[in-house]
């Protein structure tokens, strides 16, 4: 019995370490965003503690940067909270995907695992082979993404004045590069998925001209996936695409 426990513990640690390993690119992605956020927050008069506290408690890059921008332009609290809510609506969809892949029964583990629902955590978990998507893997992803975000904010608060602007600016590409690195390998060997992706990009680009970007992202994500169900066929693949699971 004891031995069995040991083995389980070992595979638990292995999955956890794998989750951390898979999240390393996010560290490079989050750092510049966190630093940008910290610089902006200090710029609109938030204290160091408030800046770090926002990252600790909210843990949402786009929302925090938007909130700070709105504070800077003199917006009121209600409109900031509302805008945050709209911007985060996409997380309902992402969270549904994640919890469909990583089945969790325990109440407290559910509460903690909700922290894996960031654009990046979602990207990592949903592009990972389904057999690797267990609870310790998700916890590993959460550990590194969360620490990267908080650590990046602290670095930003401390070092915002030291870092050369060109270096900070260049890291702005990091999150996009990460998403591309995650989707390109799958799109490359599936023409129908490629078409779906192109259609989504076009819809979003057009919508962005007419409506607010956070709504555009939600609508084009849903519309692209809905159209995609008519485009993509059912060939089984070793990742999220094509495996049609009925529960």
């Amino acid at each position, binding site marked *: 019995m004891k031995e069995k426990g040991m083995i389980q513990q070992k595979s638990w640690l292995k999955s956890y370490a794998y989750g951390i390993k898979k999240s390393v690119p996010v560290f490079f992605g989050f750092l510049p965003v966190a630093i940008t956020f910290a610089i902006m927050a200090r710029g609109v008069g938030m204290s160091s503690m408030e800046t770090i506290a926002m990252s600790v408690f909210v843990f949402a890059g786009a929302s925090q940067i938007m909130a700070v921008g709105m504070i800077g332009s003199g917006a009121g609290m209600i409109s900031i*909270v509302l805008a945050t809510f709209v911007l985060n609506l996409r997380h309902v969809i992402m969270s549904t995907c994640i919890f469909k892949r990583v089945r969790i029964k325990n109440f407290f583990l559910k509460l903690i695992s*909700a922290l894996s629902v960031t654009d990046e955590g979602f990207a990592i978990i949903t592009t990972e082979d389904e057999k690797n998507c267990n609870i310790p893997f998700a916890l590993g992803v959460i550990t590194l993404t969360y620490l990267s975000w908080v650590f990046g904010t602290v670095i930003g608060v401390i070092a915002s004045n030291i870092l050369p602007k060109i270096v900070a600016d260049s890291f702005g590409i990091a999150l996009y*590069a990460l998403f591309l*690195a995650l989707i390109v390998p799958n799109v490359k060997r599936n023409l129908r998925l490629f078409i779906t*992706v192109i259609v*989504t990009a076009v819809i*979003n680009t057009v919508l962005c001209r007419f409506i607010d970007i956070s709504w555009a992202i939600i609508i084009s994500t849903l519309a692209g996936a809905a159209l995609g169900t008519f485009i993509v066929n059912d060939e089984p693949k070793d990742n999220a695409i094509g495996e049609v699971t009925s529960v």
Partner: protein
Amino acid sequence: MNIAVLILCMMLVTYIPRVLPAFVVEKMRFGKRFGKFINLIPYTAMTALIFPGILGVDAERWYIGAIGGVIAIALACFKKIPSSLVVLASVLAVMVAYWII
């Protein structure tokens, strides 16, 4: 504005959309088409986050983001290259672009 209250409210509206599906998803039944739809969302969501946002990496010069994007796509085509390396190479490419242009 009371920043502490703002942080608390933002925490609520951020956390609730994240946690709610955890308690609902097991009661949902997925049909064939809906399963396909859910499986496609990672790709359409990431695409929507990339385009056209990537072209706004530099507010005045769209091609700065395009350069980083092309490098990332090109390297991501090789299966052997880990994604952290793709990200770093893309960042370096943008840094060089800023420096030269």
